[in-house]
């Protein structure tokens, strides 16, 4: 019986801890967007949105929003002082050209080789959709994934090899799950932190790839 899973907010706080002051960051839609709300206030982070915003701020106060000022998830946002609007092609110059320091992406599957599958499953009843995921995955300086460790029905998301169509090969640097912090290294997955109460065997039981455990394996205390 493993320790309890982190809540989405707890995961977001753990991810946020690793984002240095002054970073340019793109947050994928879904879980990753939570990160913006929990970055320590002493850090100045510049958020990028693929639709042409650099210096994106939080959601507007009710009734004050600009309906055309939306983020990649189509939710209303604001612009910080110092922010700028750019057109789509320039927004992707930033993404693909190595100008984004960190992107936090969701994932269906991550392989021990760093392969990422986060745009299509094998479900043929829904039309495929890719958005900006492939550009971000190949272009950001550091690609981290924020995801539950398993699917809703309990299947592993960390695998020796992805079975879903790839977004990009060998791009993921680190995975933050609700059970652990796992680096992708030339030797495969290396677990850096385990949520309090979770043992290495607990994690192995829900991971479909070999796991190495860091010599200085730390306890991830929810914050």
């Amino acid at each position, binding site marked *: 019986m493993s320790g309890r899973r982190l809540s989405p907010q707890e995961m977001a706080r753990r991810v946020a801890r690793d984002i240095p002051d002054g970073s340019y960051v793109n947050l994928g839609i879904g879980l990753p967007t939570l990160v913006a709300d929990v970055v320590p206030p002493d850090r100045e982070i510049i958020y990028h949105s693929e*639709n042409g915003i650099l210096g994106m701020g939080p959601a507007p106060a009710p009734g004050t929003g600009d309906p055309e000022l*939306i983020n990649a998830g189509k939710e209303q946002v604001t612009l910080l002082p110092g922010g700028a609007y750019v057109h*789509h092609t320039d927004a*992707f110059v930033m993404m*693909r050209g190595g100008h984004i320091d960190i992107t936090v992406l969701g994932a269906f599957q991550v392989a021990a080789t760093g392969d990422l599958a986060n*745009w299509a499953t094998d479900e043929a009843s829904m039309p495929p*959709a890719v*958005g900006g995921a*492939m*550009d971000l995955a190949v272009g950001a300086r550091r690609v981290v994934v924020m995801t539950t460790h398993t699917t809703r029905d309990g299947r592993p998301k960390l695998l020796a090899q992805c079975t879903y169509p790839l977004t990009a090969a060998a791009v993921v640097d680190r995975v933050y799950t609700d059970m652990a912090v796992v680096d992708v290294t030339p030797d495969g997955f290396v677990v850096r932190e385990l949520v309090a109460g979770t043992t290495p065997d607990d994690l192995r039981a829900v991971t479909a790839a070999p796991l190495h455990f860091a010599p200085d394996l730390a306890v991830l205390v929810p914050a």
Partner: protein
Amino acid sequence: MIDKRVASLADAVAGIGDGATVLVGGFGNSGVPVALVHAVLELGVRELTIVTNNAGTGETDIAALIRERRVRKIICSYPRSAGSVWFEKFWRAGEIELELVPQGTLSERMRAAGAGLGGFFTPAGADSPLAQGKEVRVIDGRKHVFEKPLPADVALIKADRADRWGNLVYHSAARNFGPVMATAAALTVAQVRTFVELGELDPEAVVTPGIFVRRVVEVPA
């Protein structure tokens, strides 16, 4: 004298024909040239290829074009949205063709068309099934896929202000695909919130110079 302002939406879309490839600006509901798309619907043209980021939601603009069976093919990056019911219905029935393109590649292909380039290599999608059937080349140790220009007959975009030379400025994130689409089409039409006099737009801040724009029509917000 140059005057790209037209008096009506009908004038703005005049001449668009069956089978045209039409770029439609917008990301989600931001920057969509709704009035122009509805004018194309009124025009009654068919067999359109629509290039746009999303495949329309609800019953308006692109969703309406699809519902009324005017669209043969859609080229986009993210057709699956809450409310994209008409697209999904026709797609499942095999009655609309979908060409899925990574979003950065979509805008870059339009840029290549507008910039007179013959195509480019991008790492985006090179490891994915979207590269199937395309040339893949390792450049500086990294896989890249060759992507072709995506030129169009028409671009329909939304901007904030225009002068009679067709210079455009946009409003916040509604800028999105407007500037690149304007460069890639033989006929670029912009709906704008308001016309301004020549010289009123700051020459340091014009986003789309009029050279890329053929017609502008005023559609007050």
